[in-house]
C-alpha cells in the first residue's frame, strides 16, 4: 500500500490549505514542503507539518543549499537541512542544480550555472558532501534558466547524467522547467527529454509558468502561480507512458488557489499516472 502511495501524485503543502487537509484528509498521495520554511524553532509551521506528516508521506524540497556556489554551499545550511530531514523522515529529499548564496549573501532565487567540467566537479563534490551528512541519496532538479554562458562545454542533460553517475544522486525532472528553458533558449523540449537520463529520475515536478512578451520576443518565466500548460501536460503524459510511473508533484507557490483547484490538478496528474500504470501492469 505504502509503495503504491509513493508512486502517486502529491501537492505542495501551503499554509492556506493545511487546516482543511487535516479535517478533510483529501485522497492525494503525499505532500511536499520547502525545507527552509521549517527551520524555525517552533510555532504553527511545525504544529501543522507534524500533523500532516502523521497522515501522509512527505517529501522535503530544499531551495537554499546553493549546491553550485564556487565558494562553498550556504554556511551552516546543511546542518539545518539535516535537522528537518531527521525530524520529519521524508521519503524524498531534493535540491536544485543552481546557486543562491555568494560570500554569505543570499540572493533569493535559483541562479544558473555554466555547464563545464569545472562546475561538474564542484557540484558533484557538494552533492557528495550533502549525501554524506544527510546519510541518504538526494535528488537534484533541472532548473528553469533565462540565460546561458559563454564557453559552456556540455548540454544540461549530459551534465545531469554525469552528476548522477559521479555522485550517486538521483534526479528530479521538472517538466515545466524543461518547457521554460526550451522556450528561452530555442531548443525542442522533446529532444531534451529524449536525451534526459530518465533511469535516475526519482520524482517529477509540474507547475505553471508565465510568458512575458516584449518587442516581439517572449521569455517564459517559472512562476508556479497558475494551472499547468497544455504543453507541459502533453510532455508529462509522454514521459510517464514511455519511461514509467514516478511520484509526481503539483507545485503552486504564488497566487495559491482554493484547495479544490489545486486538488483538481493533482487528480489530473493522478489519472495520467494510473492510465500509464495500468498499461504497465497489462504489459507485465
Amino acid at each position, binding site marked *: 500500500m505504502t509503495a503504491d502511495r509513493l508512486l502517486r501524485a502529491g501537492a505542495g503543502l501551503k499554509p492556506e490549505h493545511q487546516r482543511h487537509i487535516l479535517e478533510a484528509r483529501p485522497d492525494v498521495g503525499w505532500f511536499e514542503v520547502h525545507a527552509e520554511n521549517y527551520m524555525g*524553532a517552533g510555532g504553527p509551521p511545525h504544529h501543522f507539518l507534524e500533523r500532516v506528516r502523521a497522515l501522509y508521506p512527505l517529501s522535503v524540497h530544499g531551495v537554499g543549499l546553493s549546491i553550485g556556489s564556487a565558494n562553498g554551499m550556504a554556511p551552516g545550511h546543511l546542518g539545518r537541512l539535516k535537522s528537518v530531514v531527521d525530524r520529519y523522515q521524508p521519503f524524498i529529499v531534493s535540491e536544485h542544480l543552481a546557486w543562491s548564496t555568494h*560570500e554569505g549573501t543570499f540572493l533569493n532565487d535559483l*541562479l544558473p550555472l555554466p555547464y563545464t567540467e569545472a562546475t561538474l566537479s564542484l557540484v558533484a563534490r557538494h552533492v557528495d558532501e550533502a549525501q554524506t551528512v544527510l546519510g541518504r541519496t538526494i535528488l537534484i532538479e533541472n532548473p528553469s534558466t533565462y540565460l546561458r*554562458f559563454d564557453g559552456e562545454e556540455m548540454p544540461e542533460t549530459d551534465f545531469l547524467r554525469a552528476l548522477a553517475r559521479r555522485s550517486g544522486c538521483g534526479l528530479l525532472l521538472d517538466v515545466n522547467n524543461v518547457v521554460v528553458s526550451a522556450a528561452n*533558449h530555442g531548443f525542442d523540449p522533446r529532444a531534451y527529454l529524449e536525451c534526459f537520463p530518465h533511469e535516475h529520475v526519482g520524482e517529477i515536478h509540474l507547475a505553471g509558468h508565465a510568458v512575458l512578451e516584449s518587442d516581439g520576443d517572449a521569455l517564459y518565466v517559472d512562476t508556479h502561480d497558475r494551472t499547468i500548460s497544455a504543453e507541459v501536460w502533453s510532455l508529462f503524459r509522454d514521459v510517464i507512458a514511455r519511461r514509467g510511473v514516478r511520484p509526481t508533484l503539483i507545485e503552486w507557490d504564488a497566487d495559491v488557489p482554493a484547495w479544490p483547484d489545486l486538488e483538481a490538478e493533482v487528480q489530473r496528474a493522478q489519472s495520467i499516472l494510473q492510465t500509464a500504470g495500468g498499461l504497465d501492469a497489462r504489459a507485465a
Partner: protein
Amino acid sequence: MPAQPDGSGLADLQHRFAHAVLQAPLAVPDGIRHDVRPTRERRFGVYRNNVKASLAAALAARFPVVERLVGDEFFTAMALVFIERHPPRSPVLAEYGTAFANFLEGFDPAADLPYLPDIARLEWSRHVAFHSADASAADIGRLAELPPEALGSVRLGLHPAMAVIASPWPIVSVWTTNTHDATPEAPAADWTGETALVTRPHLDVLVQRLPPGADLLVAELAQGVALSAAAEAASRTHDSFDLATALATLFGAGAITTLSQGSSS
C-alpha cells in the same frame, strides 16, 4: 567564461553576477551569451526582478502595517533601498528583516511618520513570536497556590515567544486600528506612548498593551530577579505601577511559563 580546473572562473563569474543582481545600475556581467534574442539585458533582468521582487514581497508580508501606513508604492521603493543595503545573510527567509526597523530610523523620506520604526519593531516581534520555540503557558492560579511566604521569592520564567516593545508613540493603538479597521488612521498628536506585549501561548500571536511599569517588571524577571524585588524596582520607577494588574496581564497573555523557588543563575 574562462573554464579553469580549480573553479576560480566560476567564483569570478558568481561574484560579478551577484553584485550585478543586487546593484541595479551595474551592467549585465561579462560571460553571458549575447548572440541571442531576447537580449541578455532582458534575460538578466528576470533574475534581478526575481530576487528583488521576492524579497520585497517577503518584507511586505512581514510588515503589513508599515506597508499600509506608507502605501504600496512607497513601501516597495523603501524595501528596494533596504534590500540593496541589507541583503539577506541566510537562506532561511524567516530571518530576513531584523534590521528593517533600524533602517527606518535613518530613512529620511519616511521621517514624517516618526512612529514607523516602533511599528516595525512590533511587527518584527510578532513575526519572531510566530516561529519561536513552543512552551506551555502557566495559569495565574499557580501563584495563588503558593504559600504567602513563598510569593515574594518566586521566580517567573518568561515564554520564549514573548517580547516587549516600549515606545513614546501609541504603537498598540496604531497597530490595532491598521490591522482590524477598514480605514487606516494616524495617531493624534497628543496620544501618549504605549508599551506592547507580544505573546504566542499556542498557535496565535497576541498583541496587547502593558500597563505602566510592567515592562520594567518583565526586564527584572528576565534577569532572574525574584518577584518581590522585581516589583520594587518597577514601583521605584513608576509611581502608578500595580503588581496585580501587571501579573494579570502577563499571565493572561501567556507570557509566563514557569514558577520556581531558589537562587537565580
